[in-house]
């Protein structure tokens, strides 16, 4: 299936096969974080399986655009209706002929990293300048207070080139590491610590040159570009070696490869299937090792109570919250589950001028909980969520691998 065909797929096939499984039980409605805070979004059942019956190419209900694609509805549905997927597809079709420039730009995550890294201090400073942000809001529709990533002076590729190679010989064979664009340019520390933990466990960590998974484009309805990106990424990850486990510290991008590219955009390609079945979220990978009795658990004590928030796009992978199980193994750590469905940002949703207030309202219970439990430190597996939660709570928010790294004595 080529890129054009995926939009075609969305237009004609959608997730309609699951449509008639809807029994209108309202369970999805009770899980929606957006309709909980605004009447602008009428809820996943209305906009999804109900409105879908009235769609004939064109959408009858424009509140669809307020769906953040967090996937909580699909996860909660006992009848197997692909509600979030239906909505994402219908939105892509709805926006196809008048895609805002803003949505096309904001989804170019790799480009942003490439542009900002060489001029990191300057870029970081510029994004703090209020008048400049006001202009950006006026011209582009990106909210002036929306969280922005902090550019790094060093990329993960730069670090890998310069660092001392591990002295310990690999005893467990090679694995492939997928860092995602944010893990390559902005959240470089997470990638470094993930690689170091895997090497400590005895793996040889292969990091092929890699681009973006296309998730931001997909969630903005830009299926053509997203399909090209995800397949290119599959080629890159596959180039590191056949049948190797691929491990990622980028919670949401992993979901794009595991199921979203296929289920939302209809990408039906053996390369995607190969990568999608080999990839593991890093905490999922550690839990699998633990279940098999192969994870050293001689962790040093870390006296810490902190909120852990599993991103919506991690939960939608249907594997529970592996990080919670791993954090239980570290003496002294009490990870308090956030209980929040979503932090509000949902990729690029919360950056947008018209959705910023909704995204903040969605995230507020989470921010408040962090302020109550531990206002200094919290954990979350996806980069954009960390930016949102840092801004909303004021806490330092890091990937849970930070604690594993520390508990193994690596930091």
């Amino acid at each position, binding site marked *: 299936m080529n890129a054009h065909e995926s939009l075609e797929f969305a237009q004609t096939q959608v997730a309609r096969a699951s449509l008639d499984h809807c029994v209108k039980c309202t369970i999805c409605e009770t*899980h929606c974080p957006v309709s909980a805070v605004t009447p602008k979004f009428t809820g996943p059942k209305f906009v999804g399986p109900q409105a879908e019956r009235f769609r004939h190419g064109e959408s009858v209900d424009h509140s669809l655009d307020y769906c953040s694609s967090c996937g909580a509805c699909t996860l909660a549905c*006992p009848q197997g209706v692909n509600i979030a997927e239906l909505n994402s597809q219908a939105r892509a079709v709805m926006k196809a002929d008048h895609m805002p420039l803003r949505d096309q730009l904001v989804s170019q995550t790799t480009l942003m990293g490439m542009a900002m890294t060489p001029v990191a201090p300057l870029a970081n400073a510029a994004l703090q300048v209020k008048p400049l942000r006001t202009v950006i809001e006026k011209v582009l529709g990106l909210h002036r207070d929306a969280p922005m990533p902090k550019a790094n002076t060093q990329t993960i590729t730069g670090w890998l080139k310069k660092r001392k190679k591990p002295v310990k010989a690999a005893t467990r064979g090679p694995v492939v590491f997928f860092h995602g664009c944010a893990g390559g340019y902005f959240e470089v520390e997470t990638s470094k610590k993930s690689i170091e933990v895997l090497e400590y466990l005895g793996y040889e960590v292969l990091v092929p040159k890699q681009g973006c998974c296309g998730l931001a484009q997909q969630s903005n309805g830009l299926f053509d570009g997203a399909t090209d990106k995800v397949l290119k990424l599959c080629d890159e990850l596959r180039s590191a070696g056949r049948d190797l486990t691929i491990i990622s510290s980028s919670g949401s991008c992993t979901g794009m490869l595991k199921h979203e590219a296929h289920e939302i955009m209809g990408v039906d390609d053996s390369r995607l299937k190969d990568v999608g*079945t080999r990839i593991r979220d890093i905490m999922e990978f550690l839990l699998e090792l633990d279940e098999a009795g192969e994870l050293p658990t001689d962790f040093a004590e870390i006296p810490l109570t902190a909120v852990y928030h599993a991103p919506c796009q991690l939960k939608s992978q*249907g*594997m529970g919250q592996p990080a919670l199980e791993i954090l239980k193994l570290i003496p002294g750590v009490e990870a308090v589950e956030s209980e929040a469905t979503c932090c509000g940002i949902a990729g690029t949703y919360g950056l947008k001028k018209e959705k910023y207030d909704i995204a903040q309202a969605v995230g507020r219970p989470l921010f408040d909980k962090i302020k109550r439990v531990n206002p200094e430190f919290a954990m979350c597996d996806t980069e954009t969520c960390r930016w949102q939660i840092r801004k909303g709570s004021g806490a330092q928010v890091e990937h849970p691998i930070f604690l594993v790294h520390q508990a193994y004595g690596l930091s």
Partner: protein
Amino acid sequence: MTRVVVIGAGVAGLVAAIRLADGGARVALLNKGTGGLQLGQGTIDILGYSPDRVERPLEALQAFAQANPRHPYATLDAECVRAGTGYLQELLGPALLVGDPDVNLQLPTAAGAIRPTALVPPSMAAGGCVSGANFVIVGLRQLKDFYPELVAGNLARTDLPGGGRLSARAAMLDFPAREGEVDSNALTYARALDDPAYRRRFARAVKALVGEGETVGLPAVLGLDDHDAWTDIADQIGAPVFEIPLPPPSVPGLRLNRALTARAKTSGVRMVPGSKVTGFRASGGSVNSVQLAVAGGPRDFVADAFLLATGGFESGALHADSYHNVHESVFDLPLRIPQGHLVHGDYWGDPQPLFTLGVETEPSMLVRHPDGDAVYDNLYAAGGILAGATRWQEKSGEGIALASAVRAADSILATAASVATSQGAAS
């Protein structure tokens, strides 16, 4: 440590998972979608009709089981039901559940019928339909699914189960849950009523409609996370208040579901929601693992014991094709299938035989072949998947679920303890 996989997160799955984890097992709870608690009324039925209206459910249980020897209550006796409901009351506490398993309350429905049930949220307790009761039923103009004229009209013209009549009148309040929304659901109101300021305005508006000596019946939207919201409202109105359950989303059901889910997490249960169990491996008469179809492919969940708490037809645990061939969807277990036609044409007639279909168990809740031996030596079942009951007609669903969940959990823990003892003796 014994490992247990529980499949299904309705009341049976949740309660069993908590009991197992508190009993020292390492528990994973797998569920495809949210369980059925929030689709129910948030009350605990034990036995409502046998087939006549039941006033003392536990007393009625023995005769009911004798008349229905294939019914789950034939092995789950009154003491077992008492243990199950008692355990739930212990887990939830009086802020969420009150009542006496020996006595049924007769509570109004959103259609103005009178429904027998045993344990109820305290916010419903004042709604008992007894002779001489004096109700004003208050509706909200912006809330669909609740029509006070229907409720009050039907209640007032009904000869009460205990004899006599009650008086009921209807009143309507124009009171949006949030600005700009003309059509809100129960949950939106419940969230709004968690806010003390909104609650104050709401109570003031309701108070203006209440006459001397009246008890106020309101749709079940009186707070979601704040379990004292309803008492606050009653205090501010200055009259007794009760909630009437609505069609889904059921706020009282959500409260129970949230409380039990949170309790399961506190007990250390690993929750894995959103994926379907699509296969299993078995050897030597035991189930070794189930396969969960997570994003990116199936993953094995290995355990020492497995508890099937997936429900019935409504959740997809049982599936009937167009020839009325019925299958259990996880393990393809042998089922007790009634003789003759599974569905008869008389809609208002006898219970449909189809719905008594399910798995049969030994008293330990180990799944067995109908009238035969255990299918596997470590596969148990609880709740709606059990054969022999027509739960909604009898109003027996939660009683069966709780009794079987507690018994299954205790059987699994007892087996684990005896294995540990024999291993200890051998070493």
